[in-house]
């Protein structure tokens, strides 16, 4: 009941923000909020890995980048030169290619966004699976360093491979047409629709993760967090659960990457950077680790502020400071500093008095 209520509250909040923006004539705020929503999608996935399964990942920007970059490259890189190659012909026969003209008027043949999206997300899932099997056997510092190393490898590849645009990244990514008349694209005409697309995705994500957490899987994950050996001894297949949740969070990250890339129309190597991964970890920490709503709220607020340039050139420093301060003084997150508990106590006391 409480879960449905929270989801309902989220929906109300989303609509309320839209109406508020429209009423005050500041619809432009919806653009950064939409972008924050996609980052939040990644963050809630990471939240389950870190907070519930207790596994740190400093490589989630890597999965985001795999999704975004693959989708961007497939939908922009011209295959016209390889028209006679077998894989291209097969893709064409399957109806997964679109012909068109590029900005210079030359013939262009690219993969449709749907196919690119599916390919990108599958690739991220596969890589997460392959990386996850050995990585998740590690613990503590080793796990942190291994995931950090993975993140650095992804960003180096993005920076070094011409196919991914090197330091320039990939721009002119075409819109992603979900349904006729509904496409993921930038521009003020699509603003409101995209705002709702993003939040629908987040809502579905939250719903999925919440049900997961309150199920057998969630209990198993919390057991792993508490003590992996104890969980093992009572028959929880710890390796499998950790791997599954890691892959799931990578899929979340990749979907966020695909959608945000189509929304922005571009992706650059900074999205793959280590700083981004650390930022996501910081936000999960501020939200209170094992707290999806905390991660969602903090993810949206902090990313929104960052995108609006409130922190100016101190952007990374602010996230570093937040990370250190939260971990020093309130490792359970800012929303659990006792304020909520205190409020709840006041409320219950009143109720008791009535």
């Amino acid at each position: 009941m409480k879960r449905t209520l929270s989801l309902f509250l989220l929906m109300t909040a989303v609509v309320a923000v839209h109406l508020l923006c429209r009423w005050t004539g500041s619809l432009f705020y919806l653009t950064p909020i939409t972008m924050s929503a996609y980052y939040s999608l990644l963050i809630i996935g990471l939240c389950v890995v870190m907070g519930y399964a207790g596994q740190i990942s400093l490589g989630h920007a890597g999965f985001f980048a795999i999704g975004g970059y693959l989708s961007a490259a497939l939908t922009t890189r011209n295959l016209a030169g390889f028209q006679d190659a077998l894989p291209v012909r097969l893709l064409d026969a399957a109806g997964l290619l679109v012909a068109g003209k590029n900005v210079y008027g030359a013939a262009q043949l690219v993969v449709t966004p749907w196919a690119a999206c599916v390919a990108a997300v599958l690739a991220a899932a596969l890589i997460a699976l392959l990386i996850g099997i050995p990585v998740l056997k590690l613990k503590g510092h080793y796990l942190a360093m291994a995931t950090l190393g993975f993140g650095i490898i992804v960003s180096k590849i993005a920076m070094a491979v011409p196919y991914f645009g090197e330091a320039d990244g990939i721009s002119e990514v075409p819109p992603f047409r979900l349904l006729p008349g509904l496409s993921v694209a930038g521009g003020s005409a699509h603003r409101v629709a995209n705002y709702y697309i993003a939040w629908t995705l987040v809502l579905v994500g939250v719903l999925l993760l919440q049900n997961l957490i309150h199920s057998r899987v969630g209990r198993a994950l919390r057991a792993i967090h508490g003590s992996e050996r104890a969980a093992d001894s009572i028959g929880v297949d710890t390796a499998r659960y950790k791997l599954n949740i890691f892959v799931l969070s990578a899929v979340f990250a990749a979907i966020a990457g695909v959608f945000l890339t189509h929304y922005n129309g571009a992706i650059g190597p900074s999205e793959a950077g280590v700083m981004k991964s650390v930022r996501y970890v910081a936000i999960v920490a501020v939200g209170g680790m094992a707290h999806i709503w905390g991660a969602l709220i903090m993810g949206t607020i902090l990313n929104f502020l960052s995108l609006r340039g409130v922190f100016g050139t101190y952007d990374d420093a602010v996230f570093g400071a937040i990370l250190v301060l939260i971990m020093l003084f309130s490792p359970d997150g800012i929303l659990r500093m006792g304020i909520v508990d205190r409020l709840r106590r006041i409320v219950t006391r009143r109720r008791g008095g009535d």
Partner: protein
Amino acid sequence: MGRRDLAFGFFFCNGRKGGTSPPFSIFGYDTSFSSMTLELFIQYLFAGITYGSIYAIVAIGFNIIYNTTGIINFAQGEFVMLGGMISISLLSFMPLPLAIILAVAVTMAIGALIEIVFIRWLKEPSVLRLVIITIGISMLIREAALYLWGEGVRSLPYFTGNAITAMSVLGARISPQVLWVVCTCGLMVLALTFFFRVTPAGREMRACAANRKAAILCGINTRNMVTLSFMLSAGIGALAGCMMSPITYTQYDTGTGLAIKGFTVAILGGLGNSGGAVAAGLLLGIIEAFSVSVVPLAFQDVIAIAILLIILFVRPNGLFSPGEAAGSRTF
């Protein structure tokens, strides 16, 4: 990292005769080892030893803190950067040796300060918490460096001669700075060994590493030992940072790459094992140096990290020590 590539280019330019084709090659031409001449081989070898000894020092920095506290200090690479940057800034006020000594002292003070402010008063913090705190600290130091020194690349002057001074070794041409780096790193290792074996403070630190409770019972102030370990690893990191600055240049973000390579070396040599770190450091440096003849320069860092991942997956307790496996450590 582009700066380092540039530095590598410079480094090899010394050894090139007539400047026909660059000794490092991108896929496509001159990628086979068979075409490698003896002088080129030595050239690569020295480059590898230079970088390798720096990695070894960073790894020993990791080890010192790890041994006394069980913490991996993710800000280790930042100490190296700070050492380089501070000495460069001080150089305009004083002669080079004094600038280096002062830079090392300042970095040691920063190391101690970090421990006192961020770590000392935490009560039985979890590993996750410490990892995140040190990552946050490294982020803050990097950002502070960005504001203090800007994005630009800086470097100390060559200690002997200048950028094109070179000595001939078996046909290869080696910058004297290479000797400075290698000798300083070697001396540092010897000095540390002496410190840990002979001096009372070093012995107390070893006691603290072996068994913390027993050390407390013996009347050793373990908290001070932890602060000392942070100072020590900041100091050696800073000294290495000064030595390498003329060759590799210093930039506000050089720390991250060094930290991950230093960690690779620390793992490769067995975490906590400084002798292993030296061997592993040289090994990684040499592998990296020779890798430029096989894969594009841009992927050089990828190689080190791939080695790290493979080692973590296959032999998490290091190549040289049969200790307990990473998976079974209770952090």
